[in-house]
């Protein structure tokens, strides 16, 4: 069965500092990987996705992530965070193997950007 582990429940960081939010997945087949962001009292917004091709993917708001198949990881990074990046971040996977395409989410990581 597929699963997603986000290794940090909370990540406090100062404004303009770099940040990495870690995500590991388990799956026996090829995967599609996603990062979603949830701002307070809002829905889920796609940050970026890996479907195939280049393992380094760039998303909105200056975020990027690298797919590492050997380490089954898909860590999210940003070189310089802003106060407005404070939110909950979810890593998600689906197998892309012709199934229904449901997403399996990690537990989420709360990014707290401090001034």
């Amino acid at each position, binding site marked *: 069965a597929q699963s997603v582990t986000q290794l940090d429940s909370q990540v406090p960081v100062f404004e303009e500092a770099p940040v990495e939010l870690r995500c590991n997945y388990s799956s026996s087949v090829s995967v599609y990987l996603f990062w979603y962001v949830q701002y307070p009292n809002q829905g*889920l917004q796609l940050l970026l996705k890996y479907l195939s091709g280049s393992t380094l993917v760039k998303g909105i708001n200056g975020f990027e992530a690298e797919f590492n198949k050997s380490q089954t990881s898909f860590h999210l990074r940003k070189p310089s965070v802003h106060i407005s990046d404070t939110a909950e971040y979810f890593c998600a996977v689906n197998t892309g193997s012709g199934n229904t395409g449901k997403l399996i*989410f990690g537990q*989420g990581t709360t990014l707290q950007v401090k001034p």
Partner: protein
Amino acid sequence: EPEVTQTPSHQVTQMGQEVILRCVPISNHLYFYWYRQILGQKVEFLVSFYNNEISEKSEIFDDQFSVERPDGSNFTLKIRSTKLEDSAMYFCASKQGRTEAFFGQGTRLTVV
């Protein structure tokens, strides 16, 4: 930009009552989903719907739940005889194919 819309944004209901959560997916999408997020927990898959039938459902999605696409545009989740533990944020999502899913803003269901 097309978006998934959900109504109502917040629903309060008494325990034992039935509720219907409504969603309008993006018009050319083919796959439809409901997810649930209990406060402070992760987002959980409930059910997927394709070609006018359920394609997959989770263990959570028991006989208390049902989904329907009554008119080709709306996609509803019905919860019968609500329980306190059904209190959660419910998200509708849709996608076109093997691409990303687009989520609505969610309906916060509070069972009292």
